[in-house]
């Protein structure tokens, strides 16, 4: 991480196995974004999409349990292929909207994507730790590992 996080921030970082131009590109086109944005099992429906500084992406996220969540994103700063800054909320006047900075760094074996979100208050940050995107309730979506293991277990003779 480039700098220490404040008590209003959360961050996550991952090495993505692809060239920086490719990784940046899939953040810029809705045909790509809709293929991977969101937790396992979620899908998106887009109403408005314009990737430019000041441009907006309005979409709905569909949870695996059938619940729909409104999403609104506005791009603030775009520097291909290094950085994207955006504001994210449920709608333009969402009082709890937050700012996310995404950095793309070339690394051995791929591109390090570091996403840092700054919330308006520590309380909103804490709420996000527990709730942000944890939407499915009882209809838990397991990771592919869990599915794999469960399938394997069913096949075992000694259950």
């Amino acid at each position: 991480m480039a700098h220490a996080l404040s008590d209003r921030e959360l961050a996550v970082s991952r090495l993505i196995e692809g060239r920086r131009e490719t990784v940046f590109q899939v953040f810029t086109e809705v045909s790509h974004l809709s293929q991977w944005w969101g937790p396992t099992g979620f899908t998106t429906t887009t109403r408005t999409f314009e990737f430019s500084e000041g441009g907006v992406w309005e979409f709905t996220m569909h949870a695996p349990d059938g619940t729909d969540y409104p999403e609104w994103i506005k791009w603030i700063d775009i520097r291909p292929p290094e950085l994207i800054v955006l504001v994210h909320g449920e709608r333009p006047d969402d009082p709890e909207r937050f700012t996310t900075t995404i950095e793309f760094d070339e690394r051995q074996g791929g591109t390090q994507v570091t996403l840092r979100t700054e919330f308006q208050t520590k309380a909103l940050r804490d709420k996000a730790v527990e709730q942000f995107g944890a939407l499915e309730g009882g209809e838990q979506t397991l990771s592919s590992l869990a599915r794999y293991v469960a399938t394997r277990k069913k096949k075992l003779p000694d259950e």
Partner: protein
Amino acid sequence: MARAKTTADAFNAIAEPHRRTILTLLKGEERAVSEIAEAMGMNQPAVSKHLRVLREVGLVYVHPEGKERRYGLDARGLEPVYGWTGGFSRYWNESFDRLNTYVKEMEGEKGDGARPVRS
């Protein structure tokens, strides 16, 4: 106040670092107690004790194979933990899982990277 028993639930069971290491070792492949003990540099009775706790909370299953008992991870036991941790990290870690798969496929189709070019 007395602490909850280690076998009370998955949360108490995985509070112990050695047991988390065992679960990591059992991701993807079944192992015998001797293999786990060797990988961790622990003695077998100590590993067996940890495995017993993990079995009681449903995180590990036993698969008898001939004379041997092989242990495997039952990730379904982790459901309450996933559900509870949820939140920001899970949202993005799962998005990044999907992103990584998608980017690898894209570069594969274009013939970039390590994959062979289609003729």
